[in-house]
């Protein structure tokens, strides 16, 4: 096969050498074809080296020490915050809060608003707006907040094409809306959402906007100032970084006004038994020993991505995704759940294959070394919306190749034969 018609591909031969796991061979000789990147990404050697260097030379608790290791660890940890701030074009490094994952970031927002004073406080008169394509991590925190405060939860529905249905935006986002929380890119459908429209509407009624960028930050340039949202959440493990690290970016004035969530070491200014005052953001929201090594690993991941260039990463994935959509059309009985074009679309493609259950599809693909994810992808409402129990999802990243797309297509033919 030649892929000369695909433009914007990265030099994956070189890139793949940085990822040890990609040379794994499975089941008697099948090279790993890792197409489960929307679930988690693989880690380049550069990130592992940053972790090892930290643990082997600088490991110490941060912020409170005057000894060399403590100063080095603090400089590395806070240096990672600088890298994140630059990566997302944050106006201030103090707006970058480290969490354990995107789920914690989103729960942090929900809980801050539950305990906030006016005008932010979510209470029985408030409305919360989400969408039907959210990941469970951007649904359940709002359900819990609604249950606990009496607020009303509303949501945008989806079109048959797998896009947000904005037709009733004026009914959904009203004077009662306190917060709108929406994903930038759907992890199941792959849809890239027109969040500007939502942000503009929310601003007009004085509602806050949180953006779940978990599937966006790894794949394209993210500019929190251009987004004009109030909060942006994402997760390290999907963008070449270790597990155990997430980010919440929030606007400085908000972070100053909103109450803390978790209490403990590091987030205080002064403590007496009777009461405490809190450190300024971001520390106010980072209780306890933070995920130090993991933040440093995220910094190294950002260095890696930035050296390649996020625009180039996006172009590569766009080419691979377009090619995959084209080739998936060849497979009989295959139905893509989500946009069937590569326009406004991320690199995750969900589909059904006749009435072969995704579990079975995934199992037979696995036997050929092809790793895809099957199930509801923590977005069960999307499956309900499209009347399917589950999907098979192939998702790409900067190291994915057109050859891997071909392997997937061959694999799917094999699946069909197997269950014929």
């Amino acid at each position, binding site marked *: 096969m030649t892929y000369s018609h695909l433009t914007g591909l990265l030099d994956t031969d070189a890139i793949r050498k940085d990822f040890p796991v990609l040379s794994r061979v499975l089941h008697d000789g099948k090279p790993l074809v890792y197409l489960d990147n929307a679930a988690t990404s693989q880690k380049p050697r550069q990130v592992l080296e940053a972790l090892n260097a930290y643990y082997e030379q600088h490991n110490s608790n941060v912020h409170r020490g005057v000894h060399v290791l403590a100063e080095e660890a603090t400089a590395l940890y806070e240096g990672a915050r600088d890298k994140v701030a630059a990566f997302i074009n944050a106006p201030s490094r103090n707006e970058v809060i480290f969490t354990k994952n995107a789920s914690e970031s989103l729960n942090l927002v929900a809980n801050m608003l539950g305990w906030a004073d006016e005008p932010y406080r979510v209470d029985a008169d408030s409305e919360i707006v989400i969408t039907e394509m959210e990941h469970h991590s951007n649904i359940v925190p709002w359900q819990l907040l609604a249950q606990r405060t009496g607020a009303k939860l509303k949501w945008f529905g989806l079109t048959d094409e797998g896009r947000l249905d904005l037709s009733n935006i004026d009914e959904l986002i009203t004077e009662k809306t306190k917060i709108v929380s929406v994903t930038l890119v759907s992890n199941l459908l792959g849809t890239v959402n027109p969040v500007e429209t939502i942000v503009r509407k929310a601003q007009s009624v004085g509602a806050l906007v949180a953006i779940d960028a978990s599937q966006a930050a790894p794949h394209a340039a993210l500019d929190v100032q251009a987004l004009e949202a109030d909060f942006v959440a994402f997760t390290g493990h999907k963008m070449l970084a270790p597990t155990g690290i997430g980010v919440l970016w929030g606007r400085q004035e908000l972070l100053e006004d909103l109450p803390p969530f978790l209490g403990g070491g590091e987030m205080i200014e002064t403590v007496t038994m009777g009461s405490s005052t809190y450190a300024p953001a971001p520390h106010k929201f980072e209780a306890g020993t933070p995920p130090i090594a993991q933040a440093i690993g995220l910094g190294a991941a950002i260095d890696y991505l930035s050296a390649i260039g996020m625009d180039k990463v996006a172009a590569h994935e766009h080419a691979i995704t377009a090619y995959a959509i084209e080739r998936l059309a060849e497979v009989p009985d295959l139905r893509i759940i989500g946009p069937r074009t590569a326009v406004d679309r991320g690199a995750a493609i969900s589909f059904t294959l006749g009435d072969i259950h995704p579990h079975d599809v995934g*199992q037979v693909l696995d036997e050929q070394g092809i790793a895809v994810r099957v199930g509801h992808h923590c977005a069960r409402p999307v499956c309900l919306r499209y009347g399917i129990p589950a999907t098979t999802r192939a998702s790409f990243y900067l190291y994915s190749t057109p050859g891997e797309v071909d392997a997937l297509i061959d694999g799917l033919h094999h699946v069909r034969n197997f269950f014929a």
Partner: protein
Amino acid sequence: MKLDSMYQEIILDHYRNPHGKGLRDGDAEVHHVNPTCGDEITLRVKLDGAVVEDVSYESQGCSISQASASVLNDLVVGKTVGEAQQVQEAFLELMQSKGQSEGDEEILEDAVAFAGVSKYPARVKCALLGWMAWKDATAKALAGHPEITTD
């Protein structure tokens, strides 16, 4: 090929032509979900005294969970609850064996075909979905009939 150890021909047959599928009259009904993958089953048990008169079900899931419900129907309908419980326990044990057991064909009949599934931790829950639902529904049905003893 390793895969064949999971997808035995018997399993694929049950999957293509499930036995006893559909919801019929019952003494108790349960709805079970496999949270990790979303497979679901609604299952009813009808007892005739201490005998399992019928196990009817509507389910949605993979070949393994479908076939396993079908085999369940084959194996427990017509048995006394006590006998059926023994089969259920033997099946549970087989599924937890991590590929170390072949299963007792005397007790498990067609269900020994699931021995290969026990090597795939992610699929064990699929194979058990119907059986756990049956266990639960039977307990419910028995609770409504305190006169029935099973030991």
